């Protein structure tokens, strides 16, 4: 690939990101995502922590970084998936719905290249959404509760820098899992010209996965569920740090990206574009 060609490829991705991050709808979504840590911080400040709180919520008054972790925990089942589902399901279906897909394809944009660019943009969005929640949470948490040593689940304490690193690792793990959801959304997006339908379908799949995961009678299928390993990020709060417990979750996420990415490719590269 020549340098000019490489730059050409970068242009479409930048355009894609501008489209996502320049859209007012997505700014509203970001505002919702960012309001949760603010809400948590204020609630804990006003009412104090109670004995019924989980480990993460219980630590907020001691260290502001835990506001970020608490917000991620709260937003993981629904708010973060809804954001990623909306973006990924819009990827192809949105362009098909507007008719802009046909003009991209006759420019021409190779269909495989378009999928790669769309998937990359979804991954960037998933990372930004996760980091936004974490950053707002950490900022308001540190402002209100201060940041000292970080208590681990194992009972030891970590320095502030080490605590911050753990938070970044949590974000990385959650991003990977949200990218897996994004791959599912991208595949659904190649099936329809209705972005809203694709968003809802992707969300339904996510919620169905969570429901199935809650039924112990179905434990045999649990290891294959998209959402099964999401809460494993708590393993990152142990001392000493071990990434091994995150292996199954990471593997599951990579498998989802591979399978649904391939399905999206097979569908999109053979589809008639009549929109």
């Amino acid at each position, binding site marked *: 690939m020549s340098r000019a060609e490489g730059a050409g490829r970068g242009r479409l991705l930048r355009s894609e990101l501008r489209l996502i991050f320049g859209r007012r709808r997505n700014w509203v979504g970001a505002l919702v995502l960012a309001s949760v840590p603010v809400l948590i911080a204020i609630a804990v400040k006003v009412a104090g922590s109670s004995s019924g709180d989980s480990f993460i919520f219980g630590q907020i008054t001691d260290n502001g970084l835990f506001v970020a972790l608490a917000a991620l925990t709260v937003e993981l089942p629904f708010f973060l998936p809804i954001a990623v589902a909306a973006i990924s399901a819009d990827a192809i279906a949105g362009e098909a719905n507007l*008719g*802009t897909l046909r003009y991209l394809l006759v420019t*021409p944009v190779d269909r495989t290249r378009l999928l790669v660019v769309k998937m990359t943009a979804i991954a960037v969005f998933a990372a930004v959404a996760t980091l936004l929640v974490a950053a707002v949470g950490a900022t308001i948490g540190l402002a209100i509760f201060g940041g000292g040593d970080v208590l681990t689940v194992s009972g030891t304490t970590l320095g502030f820098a080490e605590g911050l690193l753990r938070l970044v690792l949590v974000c990385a793990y959650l991003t990977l899992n949200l990218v897996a959801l994004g791959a599912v959304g991208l595949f659904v997006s190649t099936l329809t010209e209705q972005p809203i339908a694709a968003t809802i379908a992707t969300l339904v799949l996510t919620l169905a996965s969570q429901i199935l995961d809650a039924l112990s009678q179905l434990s045999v299928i649990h290891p294959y569920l998209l959402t099964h390993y999401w809460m494993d990020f708590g393993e990152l709060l142990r001392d000493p740090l071990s990434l091994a417990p995150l292996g199954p979750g990471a593997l599951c996420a990579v498998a989802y990206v591979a399978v649904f990415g391939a399905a999206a490719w097979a569908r999109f590269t053979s589809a008639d574009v009549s929109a």
Partner: protein
Amino acid sequence: MGPTSTLAVSSSGLTKRFASGQVAVAGIDLAVPTGAVYGFLGPNGSGKTTTIRMLLGLLHPTAGEHTLLGEPMPRGSATVLPRVGALVEGPAFHPYLSGRDNLLRLDAADLTVDGRTARARVGEAMDRVGLGHAAAKRYRHYSLGMRQRLGLAAALLRPRELFVLDEPTNGLDPQGTREVRSLLLEVAAAGATVVLSTHLLSEVDQVCSHVGVMHRGKLVAQETLAALRTRHAPRVVVTTTDPAGALAVLTAAGLADGRAAAGRAGALLGDAAPEELVAALVGAGVPVSGFAVEAATLEETFVELTGEGFDVAG
């Protein structure tokens, strides 16, 4: 050199059957000479847009093959399509982006252009279609005519050798229609081939050198506009109480395809002089109450080809 080397667009047996079983395009053999302004005519639903979508690689043909600019498609897409400017089934852009940002996005998708010249080229294309003043306006606030112009601007983002334009004057006012037609003639004069899909006869009449007529998925005629005009040579029509006598005179004068009916007789005029025919009729004692030379209009020719009327307004 093969015959395709002089054809900007060619197809053989190009067919599209949809999953529903409907055959939208039934084995058409297109031949658009390089440099032609090819009017792709047909009533709505005759298969024009489906054909264009297949030509551009948006739909996979059920059977048949085609070339664009001499290259087999869809294999040659990456090298051919950058040289093709297209307007397919109306303009389509992101509503919440400005006209300029929409064009910048399309330009960003093109691997064969230099991103550093994007702004200049976008500005130039918008000026060319008369949208310079509305470049920063959101697409959603564009009128139908402005949208159509923006679609044309996208086709003009870079020099092209072939334009495939589906109903480019749709939604334009008379002034806009004239501007688009002069734009077409301008790019054609610069050497580009233009395939102009339309249901407007006047459009074909004014700008096209070649015509292909679609009817129910079939290409029922394909020739130069001049040849199509002479396809229906002028006929002599005599109104008379003695059709048989009139027919005898016309036949004796050497006119071909003579026919007689109640109250009238007619034949192909050919090289005969109408005034001499009148004299001959009167000399033979045929009571002539009417005499006319009727040339079929383009519209009549198309109605005959397709059995359907065309919108001749606009």
